[in-house]
């Protein structure tokens, strides 16, 4: 099973939101990472066929999704970045409605709804109106609706936005558990969301693929280039001018900082194991990266 984009492009006026994007997604979790405006959401909208590309096409198992039409959407689960729900519907009613839209028979819809409400910790509030829900509860309900039809292709745009740390862990585990025989494409601002779950990572910048591969393979590029240095607070500004700086922790009144450098930056710097976050930093400008990593 595969989902392929062929020279996919989208222009809004003279602005290229997505440029000549060709990639084949296969079973497993693919993390889509990039700063704001890199074209992740536009790409996902084209992949779920709610936005017409300016150029190129999307193929599901070799057939254009425009031809497959509802057969493709039948295989699809989608969680948009920004979505609304009917405030006067209860969580349960909303899922029944989504199940009807997805063409699930009534009995199956009831069974699946119960199962997902339980899984996403919404069972106790299933009769409550969505209008009374917090952002995190709405997000979980959004995830539940995406999973209703047991989709073969699951496209999740910023699925962890609004989730608390516990919920994020539960979500990651859930995705890992279900991703074996389906294509899961997940965009996120939070690199750690995909670090341990993704089988493939795609870095996007200005509408194009900057880098792609398995997290392990990608991280290998940085082996021998990530250093840990301990500096006083006052040295941070000059350090940033010289090097790309990653995570930092406070240690004995000083700062323990991860620095990306081809060469040993200080005599007492220690070589450490790189992570996806440092890789991200190495690709993007510090401001963009910080904006993403801090979220």
């Amino acid at each position, binding site marked *: 099973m595969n989902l392929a984009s062929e020279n996919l492009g989208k222009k*809004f006026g003279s602005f290229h939101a997505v440029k000549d994007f060709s990639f084949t997604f296969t079973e497993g979790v693919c993390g889509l990472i990039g700063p704001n405006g890199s074209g992740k959401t536009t790409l996902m*909208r084209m992949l*779920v*066929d*709610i*936005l*017409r590309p300016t150029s190129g096409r999307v193929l599901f198992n070799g057939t254009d999704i425009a031809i497959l*039409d*509802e057969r493709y*959407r*039948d295989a*699809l689960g*989608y969680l*948009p970045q*920004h*979505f*609304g*729900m*009917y*405030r*006067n519907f209860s969580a349960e009613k909303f899922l*029944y*409605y*989504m199940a*009807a*839209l*997805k*063409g699930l028979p*009534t009995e199956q*819809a009831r069974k699946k709804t119960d199962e997902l409400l339980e899984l996403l910790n919404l069972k106790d509030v299933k009769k409550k109106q969505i209008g009374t829900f917090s952002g995190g509860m709405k997000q979980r309900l959004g995830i539940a*609706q995406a999973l209703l*039809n047991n989709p073969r292709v699951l496209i999740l745009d910023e699925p962890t936005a609004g989730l608390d740390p516990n919920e994020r862990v539960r979500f990651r585990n859930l995705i890992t558990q279900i991703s074996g025989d389906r294509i899961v494409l997940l965009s996120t601002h939070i690199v750690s969301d995909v670090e341990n779950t993704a089988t493939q990572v795609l870095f996007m910048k200005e509408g194009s693929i900057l880098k792609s591969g398995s997290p392990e393979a990608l991280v290998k590029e940085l082996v021998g280039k990530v250093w840990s240095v301990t500096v006083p607070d006052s040295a941070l500004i000059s350090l940033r001018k010289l090097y790309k700086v990653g995570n930092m922790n406070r240690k004995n009144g000083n700062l323990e900082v991860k620095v990306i450098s081809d060469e040993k930056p200080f005599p007492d710097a220690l070589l450490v194991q790189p992570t996806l976050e440092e890789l991200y930093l190495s690709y993007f400008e510090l401001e963009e990266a910080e904006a993403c990593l801090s979220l």
Partner: protein
Amino acid sequence: MFELVKFELYKIVSRKFNILALSVFILLYFFSISQFNLEYIQHFRNMHIEWNGPLTEERVAIARQELRELEAQREEDWEKYRAEHQNQNGVIFEWDETSGSKLDVRFDLVNRWERFENRNALLADLRAEIRTAEAAGLRDFDYSKNLMHYNMLSGLKPPSGDYFRGWGQLIDFAKTFGFVILGALILLTLAPVFADEYAVKMDSLILSSRHGRKKVVTAKIVASLFAVFSYAVILFIINVAVNSVLFSMDGSRVALQELFLYRHSPFNLYVSQYFFIQQATHLFGAAAFSLLVLLLSVFSRNALIPFFTGGAIYAGPFFLTRVLNIEHELIQRLMDFSYSQLIMVEELFSNFQVINLFGMPVLYLHATYFLFLLISAVTIYLIYYGFAKQQVI
């Protein structure tokens, strides 16, 4: 599919404003009904009973004589009253209701007969024109039109003296309360059907689901029409219940032409038959207009846009021709083939009107039915096409 229709219907009925609007309109209707003089209605009905049955020249002559006497009596009473109240200001003369309704019944009967005579005169004129054309070997549009008119008029029923005020009231409803209430409810209820999906950002979830392009549209159309038909049925029940209690349902087999506004109608129908045909046409008009509002809703991100645009399309031609009395040819044609004309129904049946279709006379009624069937079919296609092609940007 049934499940989807249920949900779409739930979305419509759970908007409390729709129910509130319906309740307010019904209250307004009852308020207007409460202004009727029930005593007069009862007298008028009782006075009419003795005149039930076919009208003949002899019976009309009696009615005419009695009408003259009653008018003279009223004049006399009026003079007497004026003399008694000559020094008072603001006093209104009110004749007693028994005499008043007695006069009104005679007046009504004489008018019915006069209309019958006018029809016979028109038939004679048409016959003469047809013969002249035949003698000249003319078989043009005017000839066909006159022949059609003549054939339709010559088949009409003779006049009767039966009381049928209840049917008159029932028939009047469609072009007054029916037109205003149903139009307003359609706009209020259906303007948000698609527009709200975009406004609450449900469009991406719907459009990316299996049935989110076609079946959901079918469900929305079915639920919308069901809601509108329910409104129409509620109004129908209220109309029939109120008017049958106030005026009775007597006179179901009176010819349509006995209603003053339909005196020139060429259709051979009893008032009761016409009432049901009228209701069906009214409903057809409501369905056609509902589809238009849904179409506007598909292309609007805010429900106010289809509400006001639909409102302008609905009431615009009526306002220009009936309120501002603009007599421009194009505006008149717009009114002739407008949603308001179709929903009010009256003009489709009240006169002999034809359009020239390649030299063939086609009844305005049939042309209107055909046109709105065609418009509705195109509208349905555009609703499906418009929603399926929606993009989330």
